[in-house]
């Protein structure tokens, strides 16, 4: 049913229609509305599921691992520090091959304390063995959960659906929440590969030494390679069933004949697309490549989307997380993907790649700043690595203090003090 609905609510109602048998989650902003809504649906008898309250995220993931091992369809959600706190169990869910589905309402990681959106949390778990799908809109966030259960259960591998905290979780927009029979037709009952059953005892999660650990990991990578095939198939089946394009590996926009292509993940893609339309009006041949799947990393799909013959001359990668001391996480993966399967560069020459770190800790990514930055990129003046809207004067003032004084004090608080001195008045 088409509704004007908060993103969190759209996800909760859609997850409910996926009939999870066990839901276990610990509330953390900005994910709280999702599990609150699911808790209410269970309590009111609208969803037949066991909702388990726990005392921490570590327990939440541990409980869904146990439930999943008994053959139950399981769901949880978290964000930020909560994801880090459950990290050990996150790896375990993947290592055991349990098809848990988890929403990560993307948010920065402290210190300093920051509750706002970026991709630092999910990116920190990128090699935990989970499939990672990033939603562009509330509609896609909801839809990806239906696809995630199917994908997870077909592969016996957990799937993380990443949706931008606040920007999607707290925004009210139009979304079509599928009816129960439609979801039932798309998502069959879970047929587990392994079941903990007292009547037929098995061990799951025993110690594996050097004699077989590599092989277990090899199989984990094979599942990811299989996911590269399955993700587009499931997106195509979803389109046939629901009539909407959601999911898939990559999503090109106006890339045909483009000289400049912006690569990004998540909800920033909407603002980038609007900006690219402006650039096209300016006469700059720009396009966008959205990455819906980050794990597995869709190297082949990216090469195909960028064209094997005519490649864009420039790529700009918007990074919603920073890898200090290295730069851009997405950039590094993209650079490796652009070489061919034998590791050689493309005969037509590889594009010049610029990394732009943007929207850290909730800083708005605006069309104005994107337009200015991308116009610079089109004219060849964008440096290889930069920050969108970095307040250089604030950073320089703190660097000067650090040079001048040994005991310069805590940087974050020094910067806040400078800010309140230059811009008095309450912060909105």
């Amino acid at each position, binding site marked *: 049913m088409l509704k004007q609905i908060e993103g969190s609510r759209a996800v909760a109602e859609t997850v409910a229609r996926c009939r999870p048998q066990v839901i276990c989650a610990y509330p953390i902003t900005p994910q709280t509305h999702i599990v609150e809504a699911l808790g209410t649906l269970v309590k009111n008898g609208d969803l037949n599921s066991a909702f388990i309250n726990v005392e921490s995220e570590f327990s939440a993931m541990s409980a869904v691992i146990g439930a999943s091992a008994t053959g139950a369809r399981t769901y949880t959600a978290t964000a930020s520090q909560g994801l880090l706190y459950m990290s050990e169990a996150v790896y375990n869910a993947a290592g055991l091959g349990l098809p848990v589905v988890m929403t990560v309402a993307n948010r920065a990681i402290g210190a300093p304390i920051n509750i706002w959106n970026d991709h630092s949390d999910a990116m920190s778990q990128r090699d935990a063995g989970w499939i990672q799908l990033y939603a562009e809109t509330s509609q896609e966030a909801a839809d990806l959960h239906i696809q995630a259960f199917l994908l997870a259960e077909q592969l016996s591998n957990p799937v993380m659906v990443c949706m931008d905290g606040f*920007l999607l979780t707290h925004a009210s*927009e*139009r979304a079509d929440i599928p009816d129960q029979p439609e979801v039932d037709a798309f998502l069959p009952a879970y047929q587990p590969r392994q079941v903990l059953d007292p009547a037929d005892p098995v061990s799951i999660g025993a110690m594996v030494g050097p004699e077989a650990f590599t092989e277990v990991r090899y199989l984990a990578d094979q599942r990811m390679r299989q996911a590269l095939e399955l993700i587009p198939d499931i997106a195509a089946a979803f389109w046939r069933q629901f009539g909407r394009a959601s999911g898939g590996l990559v999503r090109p926009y106006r890339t045909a004949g483009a000289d400049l292509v912006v690569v990004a993940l998540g909800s920033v893609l*909407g*603002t980038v697309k609007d900006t690219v339309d402006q650039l096209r009006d300016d006469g700059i041949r720009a396009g966008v490549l959205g990455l819906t799947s980050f794990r597995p990393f869709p190297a082949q799909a990216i090469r195909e989307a960028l064209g094997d013959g005519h490649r864009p001359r420039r790529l700009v990668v918007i990074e919603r997380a920073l890898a200090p001391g290295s730069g851009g996480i997405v950039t590094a993966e993209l650079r490796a993907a652009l070489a061919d399967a034998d590791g050689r560069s493309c005969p037509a020459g590889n594009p010049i790649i610029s990394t732009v770190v943007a929207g850290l800790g909730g800083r708005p*990514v605006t069309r104005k700043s994107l337009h200015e930055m991308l116009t610079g990129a089109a004219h060849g003046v964008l440096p290889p690595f930069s920050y969108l809207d970095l307040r250089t004067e604030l950073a320089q003032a703190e660097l000067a203090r650090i040079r001048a004084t040994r005991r310069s004090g805590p940087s974050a608080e020094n910067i806040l003090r400078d800010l309140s001195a230059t811009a008095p008045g309450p912060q909105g």
Partner: protein
Amino acid sequence: MFAVRFHGRGGQGVVTAAELLAAAAFREDRYAQAFPSFGSERMGAPVTSFCRIDDKPIRTREPVTEPDALLIQDPTLLHQADVFAGLVAGGYILINAARDFTALGLDDLAARHESGRLLTVPAASLAMAHLGRPLPGAPMLGGLAALAGPVSLDAVLAAIGERFAGQVAAGNAAAARAAFDYVTAERKELAGA
């Protein structure tokens, strides 16, 4: 595209008002996006929320920096520097206040602003009368429907009916209707003057 920025204080239903406006636009088969200025909102602290309405899907997710209309739910925010920031030329301003522009210290603004596009409406008093609580959100939307008409009063009333139930729905709807009538009368008076 019609973009609205709401200014109020935590506890005044600033976020709910933006969501109701989006729901009203949806009922008129338009695309809408409502979202709060994300933060750790506290009771009484300044809160901003946003709503965009368009005939096509809305893709951008940046905060509204150039609003077509400002709904100021708390007049004590008027003299905080950034309340009027970025309002487009010919934009609308609706302020929840029972006092005139002079009493609000807004003579300069009123002199500069196009007549009939800057109005006050006693939204909190209307809410007190009809709802029993000084929550200005619904009457401000009724006032906006009369002032700028990005959505109709009927759509606002329908959105209220969908969101609330019983006495709360009835009270909010009555307050919205009263504010609509108040602003309509004000505009007639200004047009005739």
